[in-house]
Every structure is written in structure tokens, then in C-alpha cells.
């Protein structure tokens, strides 16, 4: 193992890790947005919205993420969607993970005991009041850990955008292999950095989860 080489390239990898972190962060936010909307559709009283929600989840969970990404980035310009690689990465991955988050959020909401909403409705609260003040606060606690699993998958999934030349960790590793012919060191370094990001994220999720369970 060439440690001197590692010392020489690691600043570039740190920069790339920062791109991966930003990519993960924006993707998470977009995913949560899409997931909340998707869950709202799936649980709607209106059949049309329920069908829309199912279609969204089925499409994005039922096709490879890389196809979705290519469709957006390479196919997009053909139908007038011009995005740079980073934007396409965030949107492609965000909408994709949003489909998984839809099911996570919906699952948390429906696993809140039905008696809770019944009690609220019995007191005279509307559907929305009972959801906001009684069901949602309990569902939020239930969804922290499973959303953490989604986010973990999403961080690893950002490696996919190397294929559309976003200069993140995986892309950087490949680029340095091209000039150094040292795949072992390069992939190992990238792997370690991914692991650190995922470890710290996991700690953050666990902290949130503990805080939410204080009562």
C-alpha cells in the first residue's frame, strides 16, 4: 500500500466527500418532501390521489435508479429539461428515495394505534386536527429510525451519480485510478470516507430517536 500516494490525493478526496455530503443532504431534503407528499396521497380520502401515490411508488421502486437518473440527465434535454449533473443527481436521487420514504412515512402513520384518532375524533376534532395534534406527533417518533435506514441507503446511492460525472467520492476515486493505476488504495480511501459519513449520520439519527423517546 502506497501511503505517500494516499497523503498526496486525500485533499481531493476530502473535497469530493464534501460534495457527497451536500448531495446526500439535498437529496434527503427533497426525498422527505416527496415522501411526505407521497404519503399524503397514499392516505388521502380521494381515490385519484391514492392512485397517483401508488403509481409514484411503483415506478420509482420498480425501475433501477440508474435508469431514472439517465432518463433525467441524458433523456431530459430531448424533452426540454436542461440540468447540470449535480442538479440532475439531486433531483433523480431525491425523487427516487422519496418513493421509499413515502412507504416509510405511511407505515409510521398507519401504525399509530387507531384508538388515538378515534379518541380525538370523539372529542370533536376534525380529521386534520386529530392528525396534526394526535397522530402525527406519534408517527414522527416511529418514523425516525426507518427514515434513517432510507438515508443510509441514499448516501451509498449517491455513488451512482459518478456515472453522470458529478465529482463526488466514487467519481474522484475512478479519476485518480486513471492517473495512478492504484485502484486498491483509491477505492479503499473512498470506502473509508463513505463509512465515516454513514457512521456519523447514524449517530445523528440515533440521537434524534433517543430525544424523541424521552417521555
Amino acid at each position, binding site marked *: 500500500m502506497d501511503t505517500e500516494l494516499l497523503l498526496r490525493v486525500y485533499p481531493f478526496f476530502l473535497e469530493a466527500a464534501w460534495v457527497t455530503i451536500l448531495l446526500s443532504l439535498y437529496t434527503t431534503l427533497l426525498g422527505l418532501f416527496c415522501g411526505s407528499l407521497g404519503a399524503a396521497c397514499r392516505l388521502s*380520502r380521494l381515490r385519484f390521489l391514492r392512485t397517483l401515490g401508488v403509481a409514484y411508488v411503483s415506478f420509482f421502486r420498480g425501475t433501477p435508479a440508474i435508469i431514472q437518473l439517465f432518463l433525467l440527465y441524458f433523456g431530459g434535454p430531448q424533452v426540454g429539461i436542461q440540468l447540470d449533473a449535480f442538479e440532475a443527481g439531486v433531483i433523480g436521487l431525491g425523487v427516487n428515495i422519496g418513493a421509499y420514504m413515502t412507504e416509510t412515512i405511511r407505515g409510521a402513520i398507519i401504525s399509530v*394505534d387507531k*384508538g*388515538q384518532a*378515534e*379518541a*380525538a*375524533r*370523539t*372529542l*370533536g*376534532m*376534525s*380529521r386534520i*386536527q386529530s392528525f396534526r*395534534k*394526535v397522530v402525527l*406527533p*406519534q408517527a414522527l*417518533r416511529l418514523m425516525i429510525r426507518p427514515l434513517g435506514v432510507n438515508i443510509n441507503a441514499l448516501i451509498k446511492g449517491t455513488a451512482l451519480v459518478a456515472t453522470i460525472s458529478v465529482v463526488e467520492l466514487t467519481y474522484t476515486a475512478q479519476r485518480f485510478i486513471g492517473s495512478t493505476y492504484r485502484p486498491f488504495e483509491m477505492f479503499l480511501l473512498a470506502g473509508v470516507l463513505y463509512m465515516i459519513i454513514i457512521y456519523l449520520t447514524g449517530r445523528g439519527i440515533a440521537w434524534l430517536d433517543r430525544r424523541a423517546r424521552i*417521555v
Partner: protein
Amino acid sequence: MEKNQPFVEIRHARKCYGDLEVLKDISLTVDRGEIVAIIGPSGSGKSTLLRAINDLDPLTSGEVWLEGTLVNQVLPHHRYEKHINQVRQDIGMVFQHFNLFPHLTVRGNITLAPRMLKGLSSEEADQLAVDQLERVGLLDRIDFYPSRLSGGQKQRVAIARALAMKPKVMLFDEATSALDPELVEEVNLVMKRLAEEHMTMIIVTHEMAFAASVCDRVIFMDHGVAIESGPPDRIFQNPTEERTRAFLSRHLRNS
């Protein structure tokens, strides 16, 4: 109110789940201040009937009236929601499994709906919580979360929460069935006190002794039919219907 107009009235209630008919043309009336127990074997439809009163389990056909207002009106969605939310404020309900809100303290459980629906200030709501908790003897638990209460205490808080809406009638759906035997009495005591205050109550219960000591009238239900109804003395000592007799002897033998 005129004496001949019933306070709560159920007319020709029918409820079907697919082919299964769980309520078969039940009619009954409850006067203001009256305390009625509904007894019967499990699956007889007594909980379904109770839950139809506030339209939690809507009837397939039939009418529910509360003080001259039709509860289960057929209205467009938004108007129905407005109507039913208003009516439900007058109908308190206590559940077998308490259904306290675990993310709120006892105070939060009691004040949430009054603040939201009646626009009470936090001082007014606090006073309301204090008053209701005094009624059920749990003022010292006001800042506890439900997870730190015993089952009996939880149910008493659930009663206080329902009372805080100042309901006209209280529905009890097997309020003591999920409790350890030694915790039943404290809940029964609270219910007895409500009876002394002439709260109108409809009580689905398995506790014959309690029904006998507190209620003005007992209704025996079986297979979705109200078999017989009368003062507890007569129903328990001298039932006229064979099915009532069979149920009571089975029940008394088992308990």
C-alpha cells in the same frame, strides 16, 4: 324539555358488515339523567350500538337522535364533518383501552380539545384540567405522562378528558374490561359519582354487580337484537326471556 321527548333516541338501527348483520332493527330511548347499561355476550353488537351513537361506526340504516338533533345526518362531506364534530362535543366517550395521548401529559390530554375547539385560554384550560382532575381524584398526577399511570388512573384521566368537553351524555365502552381486578373499583367509584350528579350515561359492561347497583335500566342484547330491557332488579332477579336467563346463569357461574 318536554318529558315525552327522549334525550337520546335510536330508531330502527341496522348495521351490516357485508352479509353479517350485527344490529337488527334496534330501537331504544334514554331520558335525560338516565343511566342505562347494555349487557350481553361478546359479539352481540353492544359496542357497535354504542359506537353508532356518536357515528364512530356509522349505521347501515336507522337514526340516532340527541336532544332533537339527528346525529347521523346524510350530508356532503364537508358539511357532515362540521356537523358531526359539533355533535361529538356533546357526547363523551370512554374506551376499553383508554386511548390517552401518550405524547401529552395528563394536563395536555385534558386541555387539548377544549383549547382547540372551544377557544379556551391556557389559564381557563388549566383551571378546567384542575377541576376535572379533582372530580376523578387525580390532581396530583396533572404533570405526569400516561406511561407513568396505572391502568385505573389512565381510565380516570380518560374520563376527565371526556368530561372537560362538558358533554350532555357519556358513553362507556367496557371501561373496566382491560383493568386488573384490583383497579376496577376506583373507576367504578368515579362512574358512581357521575351517576349521583345525574349525568346521562350509556354503559356497555360485563360487570353485572356494577350495572345492578348504578343503573336505572339494563338492556340485554344478543345477536344484534335487544332481547329485553328493564330495571336491574327485574332483569337480574327475574328475566322473562330464556336467552337472558341463559346468559346470566352462564355469566354468574363464570365470575
